[in-house]
């Protein structure tokens, strides 16, 4: 699975995700990627693209929940994204997200996630595993 989220200086947001799915999946199986609110979501607060085991991501409506937790619990993007990923059984999910004010979050509960990000204030990162 691959995905990208972006926000411009005016706070316009967009998300995109694409995948081949799971190795050895049944023919006809639908994963989280095309299910709006599960693997992909964007609204006026944030844009989210998820990856991992689709069945777990659909059950947890991961992408929509990040936006909902920001809106209804008033959490920051980082707090909301971490809260949602921590709610998914370990080893099954990761996501990248940006918020309208240019914040970035890339939490995951798997061994690793291929990821990269950059912000206007000069920060950028390319990684696979935990940097700590």
């Amino acid at each position, binding site marked *: *699975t*691959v995905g*990208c*989220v*972006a*926000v*411009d200086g005016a706070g*316009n*947001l*967009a*998300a*995109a995700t*694409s*995948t*081949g*799915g*799971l*190795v*050895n999946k049944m*023919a006809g*199986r*639908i*994963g989280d*990627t*095309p*299910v*709006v609110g599960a693997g*992909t*979501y*964007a609204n*006026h607060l944030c*844009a989210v*693209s998820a*990856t*991992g*085991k689709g069945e777990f991501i659909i059950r947890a409506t991961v992408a929509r929940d990040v936006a909902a937790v920001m809106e209804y619990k008033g959490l920051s993007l980082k707090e909301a994204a971490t809260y949602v990923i921590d709610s998914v059984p370990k*080893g099954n999910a*990761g*996501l*990248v997200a*940006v918020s309208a004010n*240019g*914040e*970035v*979050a*890339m939490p995951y509960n*798997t*061994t*690793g*996630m*291929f*990821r*990269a*990000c*950059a*912000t*206007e204030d000069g920060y*950028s990162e*390319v990684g*696979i595993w935990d940097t700590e």
Partner: protein
Amino acid sequence: MGWAIALHGGAGDIPVTLAEERRAPREATLGRCLSLGVAALKANQAPLDVVELVVRELENCPHFNAGKGSVLTTKGTVEMEACIMDGITKNCGAVSGVSTVVNPISLARVIMEKTPHIYLGFDGAEAFAREQGVEVAETSHFITQENVERLKQAKGANRVQIDYTQPISAVNGDSQIG
């Protein structure tokens, strides 16, 4: 706080012992796609165009599970899916079950912009792609030897695997666990 961009190439059981020859091309592609997206944002392109541009680049890279390099179904076929969404308008497009579309993310965008629907799947999506002149290719374009091997491993272990699950010896129990 200004513009920002983030992208991923999949999450899963990526072993920290991943061989350099498998790690390097993936990290290089992530860096290249990040630069592409940053340049587009600096050129004031709309975020919707930027995310489509970056995901197309990732779909065209055989090292990631999307587009070229998609993993295989139990039948040894490719069934790709994609979704794109604009935050302010909440317009969105999605596609599933396509086997010949070179960039499924661009088909998802065409579905968003040129149909009254959000989501098309399988034969209908394939037919719409041809009607709209979206680029298609033979199935062989998408299948890599590495993924043929991965399917064999998964079948041998009677498992479904997410992107980078490592092969294990055959296990008993439900074949649907990842």
